[in-house]
């Protein structure tokens, strides 16, 4: 089962603005790009054409791993606004 099928089981209330942000200039020079594989919700993807980090913040499970994993400490991580983000029915 791929990650999109897994994420499709979840209930989200998408916020208008992203609660995750980066300075893309720093990402351009980042060799490791750990965020693109350690994230349990596959939120981060490197767009080679645009030379830009795509952040699908609406899929975020709010675990906080990316903030720690980023070798450049470049992820500005906060909780989504109240009543937004993921909701676990079971958990």
């Amino acid at each position, binding site marked *: 089962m791929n990650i999109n099928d897994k994420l499709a*089981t979840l209930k989200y209330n998408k916020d208008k603005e992203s609660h995750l942000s980066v300075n893309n200039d720093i990402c351009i020079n980042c060799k490791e790009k750990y965020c693109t594989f350690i994230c349990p919700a596959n939120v981060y993807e490197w767009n080679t054409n645009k030379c830009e980090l795509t952040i699908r913040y609406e899929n975020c499970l709010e675990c906080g791993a990316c903030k720690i994993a980023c070798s450049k400490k470049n992820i500005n991580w906060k909780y989504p606004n109240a009543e937004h983000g993921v909701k676990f029915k079971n958990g």
Partner: protein
Amino acid sequence: MNTNKVDVIVVGAGPSGVSAAITIAKSGKKVLIVDRSDAAGEKNMFGGAIYAKQTAEIFPEFWNSAPIERAITEQRIYMLTDADSTLLSYRYASKGSYKAFSVFRSKWDKWCIEQAVKAGAYYAPKTIVRELILENGHVTGIKTDLEDFHADIIILADGVNSLLASSIGLKKELKDSDVTVNVKEVLQLPKERLQDRFNIDDEDGVAAKIMGGPLKNMFAMGFLYTNKDTISIGVGVSLDELKKNCIKPYELLEEMKEHPSIAPLIKDAKIIEYSSHMLPEGSFDNIAKVYDNRVMVAGDAAGFVDNMHFEGTNLAMLSGKLAGETAVFAIDRGDFSASTLSMYYKKLEKSIIIKDLKTHNNTIATLKNNIETITSLYPELACEFFETLTAADEIPKKDKYKKFLLKVIKSGCIRKTIPLGVFAMEKCLKR
């Protein structure tokens, strides 16, 4: 007089926060517990099971009314090789003396906060604390998106990331090696089929740890819990291992689910939820500074997790209770200084929390250093032993056992195990 003033504010309605709030409310003090989710538990996830004895200290005989799934009556350890496995199982009668219960956090946490409210706590859901209010360098309140609240004491029970404890310098920034990333799926299966498959009765349940196989040679552990008509299955893996091995956590879980010894357990079960959560890798050196003037830190926020023994919610509840008791003492005394609140740390030291964290201080480092022995060699030898014992063929038994023993010796198993044994003995015997 500030109308938004209470005796104590607790940030976070997880196990530690709720325990603190209940303890304080029961003593008649005014306590406000704020939580960022719409309903407590909706942002939380764990394996998982709660431990009966310590939970009952906060919620006596909770099993009569709380939303529990199953009483855990069997603990399994699956030792996997690439294709085979050796299963260890400990089964016990639970009637009258429960050890643990599988629960879902969104249901369990909701029930717990209801008990806190019944005890007299004020509960503010949908409330995110973006920052703490400081006066003369001391925490005196919280800033939320809507309004400010003030209190004599603030208890930070805001989970593993605890941005608030970090913001006032009580918590060091977490490193890759300090945390595990946990991913889990809840898989649905008709109750009868589930019970037949796991060989359990109506109310009984299985908890399993899974090591080796797809998880070999890395600090990663699989887990499985049976619920009423669902199975919770997941993997916890150290963040530094994910980075080192370029692994996606959900792909690791998929590999584990496909192992020939695991796949039949979850066959035909339909996924109803995927989730993830980060856990601190409990060690004494990594715990936060847990008190200062007018503030205390409890639960995951403080780093109170015993990964070795899958303990976390119990330590969270206990630390919340101890922080709550300290807050009540300080309010009665009218003194909220760090020196009064140091009582919290003294209580922690007397409890299993600090004792166990000290015992495990460098355990994880030692496990990581010996990870191939533990997750690869031991499962292989265990399977090889059973293979030797059970294979009926033309080879004389003496030759078979000789071959097995030579393999054990050549594998370096004994040489590799002695330091682990000595390490464990030193931990237990040292005073």
